[in-house]
């Protein structure tokens, strides 16, 4: 096109005019875009960027809410205190453990559920989807209480129903040590959010063209081979988006732990540490530093997912592959 315009001045003229027209329209569209998205953009800045900057600013101070006059600028001392403290590393480890285990289990279960929903007979499909979605529709605090009361030693029924399972008896206090409390917390998290992951995966499954699986079938591929070589590679984008969303969610886990153990006996997670430091201790400086570090961890997870595992957030339809 460039050559055409340089060789033919007439063509260049028309083309130029067309370009101008187009750019006028583009300008108008851009303006409209800004008018439409601008307010939302400004609100987003106000409600997300401003608090982030404020938190970073606060994190450079020794600042206790109940002693505002003693506020003192201490550079990165809060970060040094946090990163040199075993509590931070223990909480990070607990958070990572919960994230990895729950996301892995949810992925397997969610995929199985998605397959069931995908293959289910038309007659039961709607009913099935609704049934699977019920846990996801329950408020997390409510489900956390339900799980807590089920396992609680004084009011729970789990100990008496499952006392035939080795290791479980009437006297098992589930929430008295991390080794039993964390599995309950994780189970509750898995029960609650597997439906979300299965819905995302169902959308991915629906996008795999039937011709591909049929062709594989004709070629004599087993069910497992179809899965491994045709279906899963074709829905990689959906899987990665589901994993990323859930990993970020799981990393910020709060409600379940807050209700069930309140972080006691080594079950504290990073969000709870940030909450306890800022809100309970009213140490705004130190608490902001914990929050900033938590935010940095979340950014890091997103970065790893998007850059290294090449998660395509635009989905399999318009984005780059």
């Amino acid at each position, binding site marked *: 096109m460039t050559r055409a315009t340089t060789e033919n001045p007439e063509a260049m003229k028309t083309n130029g005019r067309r370009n101008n027209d187009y750019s006028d329209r583009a300008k108008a569209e851009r303006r409209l875009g800004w008018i439409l998205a601008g307010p939302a953009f400004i609100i987003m800045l106000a409600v997300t960027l401003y608090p982030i900057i404020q938190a970073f600013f606060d994190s450079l101070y*020794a600042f206790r*809410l*109940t*002693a*505002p006059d003693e506020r003192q600028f201490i550079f990165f001392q809060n970060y040094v*205190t*946090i990163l040199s*403290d075993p*509590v*931070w590393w223990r909480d990070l480890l607990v958070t990572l453990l919960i994230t990895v285990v729950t996301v892995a289990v949810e992925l397997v279960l969610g995929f199985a559920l998605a397959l069931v929903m995908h293959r289910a007979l038309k007659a039961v499909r709607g009913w099935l989807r609704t049934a699977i979605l019920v846990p996801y529709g329950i408020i997390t605090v409510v489900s956390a209480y339900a799980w807590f009361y089920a396992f*609680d*030693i*004084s*009011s729970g029924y789990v100990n008496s129903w499952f006392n035939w399972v080795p290791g479980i008896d*009437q*006297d*098992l*206090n589930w*929430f*008295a*040590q991390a080794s039993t409390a964390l599995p309950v917390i994780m189970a509750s998290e898995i029960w609650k959010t597997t439906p979300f992951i299965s819905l995302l995966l169902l959308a991915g499954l629906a996008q795999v063209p039937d011709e591909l699986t049929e062709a594989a079938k004709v070629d004599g591929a087993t069910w497992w081979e179809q899965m491994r070589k045709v279906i899963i590679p074709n829905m990689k984008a959906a899987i990665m988006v589901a994993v990323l969303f859930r990993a970020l969610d799981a990393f910020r886990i709060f409600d379940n732990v807050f209700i069930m153990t*309140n972080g*006691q*006996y080594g079950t504290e997670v990073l969000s709870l*540490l940030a909450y*306890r*430091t800022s*809100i*309970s*201790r*009213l140490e705004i400086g*130190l608490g902001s530093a*914990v929050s900033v570090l938590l935010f940095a961890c979340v950014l890091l997870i997103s970065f790893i997912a998007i850059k290294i595992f090449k998660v395509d957030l635009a989905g399999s339809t318009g984005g780059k592959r």
Partner: protein
Amino acid sequence: MPGNRRIIQQRERVRERRVAVAVTSLGLTSLLLTGCGPADSGPPTLTWYINPDAGGQADIAQRCTEEADGEYRIETSLLPNDAAAQREQLARRLAANDSSLDIMSIDPPFVPELATFLAPVPEDIADSTTENTLEGALAGAMYEDRLVTVPFWANTQILWYRESVAEEAGLDMSQPVTWDQLMEVAAEQDVELGVQGSQAESMTVWINSLIESAGGTILENPEAPADEIELGLDSEAGREAARIIGTIGDEGLGGPGLATSTEGTSLTEFQGDTGSFMVNYPFVWPATQGAVEGGSLDQALLDDIGWALYPRVSEDQEAAAPLGGINLGVGASSDNPELAYQAVECIVQPENQTEYFLTNGNPPSNSEAYEDPRIEEQFPMAETIRESLENAAPRPQTPFYNEISSGLQQTWTPPEGVEPETTPEESAEFITAVLRGERLL
């Protein structure tokens, strides 16, 4: 004709739209009007931030509004359920100079932290409201030797026991008993002691009472700044407290649920087959009575329940029972501090405290309020409660109470992990490091 019909339809639509606009504007205007309405025409409104109860504080607010005869009006506003969350909300509002905090119900351990944000108690109010206040309750309302809040009601733990268990063990409950005696009975009879071993405020309450009962104190210099605070944990009294908690944990005397037991769960255990002795607040009585009336518990259980003063650590030293309750503070940013203190004076008068005890089960801080004969009838243990309050010991009174309490909770739980030789020393080191800003909590 169709054209005409269209025009008529259009007109109707326009008219409908106009009506809709008019109705909406009217609604909005009335909303705005009620928002900025003539609120200033009546008497000044005082807001009282109350902790959740069975409606007793709202009733008192109503009565005092009537007594004020147009001078002021008290409105109540509900704080969150647990004490820690109440403190968080009060601290945030006070630090933000919220002028709506006229009167607030404050748990005694948080008084020092919030004291700088409270309006000073006028001398005449201080004199009139503390005339007959029980020793322990008064101590919980002071900070740096001055009264910073007005005692309203006072809570304390007493020893609840199953008479059948005490009888079988041959314990004379008319005489003071010690923790060692209780542990011995629990071990012999294979019953459970009702104590609170959860990593929660109730743990600090227990540790504090044990240390105070052994003649020690958690905090040596309450008025020191954070980095100079000295703790009395690593002491004979601290080790004695650790021995008692550790033994109960190690030998399973508190039952399998000890590590997560709170006041509520230990009551449930106490009401069960393995119940024996329990340290707990007076709510135990109305709660059990209610369960019996509701049919979920037998009358025989209620008849089997006895009470005594908090157990001693050593035979020859009186026990220092836990102190709780509610004090009233007036916000320094309140628009009407004088009126607020007048209202406080009305709220805490003995008649109101008596009524509050009878209807809500919260014991008075004023000894005069115990004289009403109805109290003895409804709360046969009222005299024990009153006596317990005389000797009750407040928890460490410092603006850094939250750090000390959380630090204790983290290092003294689970109870089976508490060792007299190491726990007091380690917890003192940990809390000191937290206070110096060197450790996370």
